[in-house]
């Protein structure tokens, strides 16, 4: 089963009334949605408000979601529209006008600093990126390859197993151990004062 199929399974659960399934979708996509919203609204607190509003709109619109597109593509459009509406409401100009609104992968990082960004938020973002990259480099080869094939190439466990010539169960274990190793480093960052671990959920 691929990640998109997993998302669709969660969506079907939500459509049957399972709110915990929507919680899982929020936990999975909140960082991506927040990153997207921050292309428009640089203030971290305001961006979180807009991301929250986008998720609530998505929840209310989910009964009409038929699964013709991937869940994140659909969520992406809702988040973009919510951010644009927020900008109109606040009568402010967006950070950039040349964003491709149809394809999230086309959206590139814009200027990073604005007067509304807090030094703490910037420091945390930098630290997260640096920590993840260093932790990846420190992984044993088999773990690093497994997580890269999964996260960057988007391969299924079965395809990774064929590529690495090992059982699917081994792939499952390697990806988990890779994540755990990176997560240990991340928790040190949050516990180190740049952010409380309990805040990140």
């Amino acid at each position: 089963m691929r990640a998109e199929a997993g998302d669709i399974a969660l969506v079907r659960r939500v459509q049957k009334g399972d709110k915990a399934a929507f919680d899982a979708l929020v936990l999975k996509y909140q960082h991506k949605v927040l990153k997207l919203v921050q292309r428009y609204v640089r203030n971290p607190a305001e961006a979180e408000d807009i991301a929250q509003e986008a998720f609530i709109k998505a929840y209310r619109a989910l009964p009409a979601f038929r699964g013709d597109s991937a869940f994140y593509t659909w969520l992406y459009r809702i988040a973009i529209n919510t951010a644009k509406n927020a900008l109109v409401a606040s009568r402010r100009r967006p950070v950039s006008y040349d964003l491709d609104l149809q394809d999230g992968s086309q959206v590139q990082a814009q200027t990073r600093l604005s007067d509304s960004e807090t030094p703490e938020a910037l420091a945390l973002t930098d630290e997260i990126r640096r920590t993840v990259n260093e932790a990846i480099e420190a992984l044993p080869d088999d773990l690093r390859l497994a997580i890269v094939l999964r996260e960057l190439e988007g391969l299924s466990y079965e395809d990774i197993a064929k590529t690495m010539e090992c059982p699917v169960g081994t792939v499952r274990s390697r990806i988990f151990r890779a994540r755990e190793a990176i997560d240990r480093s991340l928790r040190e960052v949050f516990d180190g004062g740049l952010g409380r671990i309990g805040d990140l959920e």
Partner: protein
Amino acid sequence: MTDRIKEQLSSFLDGELPDPESALLLKRLERDDELRGALSRYSLIGAVLRSDGDVPAARHVAARVSAAIAREPVRGAKLLRMPRRDELLRASAGLAVAAGVALGAVLLVPQVVSQDPVVAAAVMAQAELPPVQPVDEVFDDAAVSYVTPPAADAPAGIPPAELANYLVAHYGYASPLVRRSVGAGLISDDESVFAEAVPPAEMADP
């Protein structure tokens, strides 16, 4: 939280956990903040790896959304809304028609009953039925038994011949379904009476 649970979480994030285990994990996620934190960080790791730029860590989004949707109605329940103006007008028109029909029935039915001898006879027959026996009188005897009440002296319904005559007189106004069902009922009840009332020539097809 054991490594086994976290490994399931990792597979769940990739859409590689079977449905029954996903359902159990979702239940656990509802009540396990540590597990929710792990899911959030695992997804953050993926977002950072796939991103060219920085990825901000969402701190309060999930908790706030979770609290907000907890107040939302359950899926499938329709939200209440105020009716639109045209819907109110349509509803008012419908009520007015229904009220008119009801008023007409109240005014016309007594006249029909009083003018039509067959219907009047039926109504009178119902009116002449003996009064309902009080419950304490029915169960007065020590030997309580389920006994059919005695038949009243007055006729309980319309005599078949009179009903047949009434049907013949009003045959043209009845719907085909009523004609068939009532006529068939009469024939099956007492074919001879209906034969007397309706000449054979009228029963034949034209």
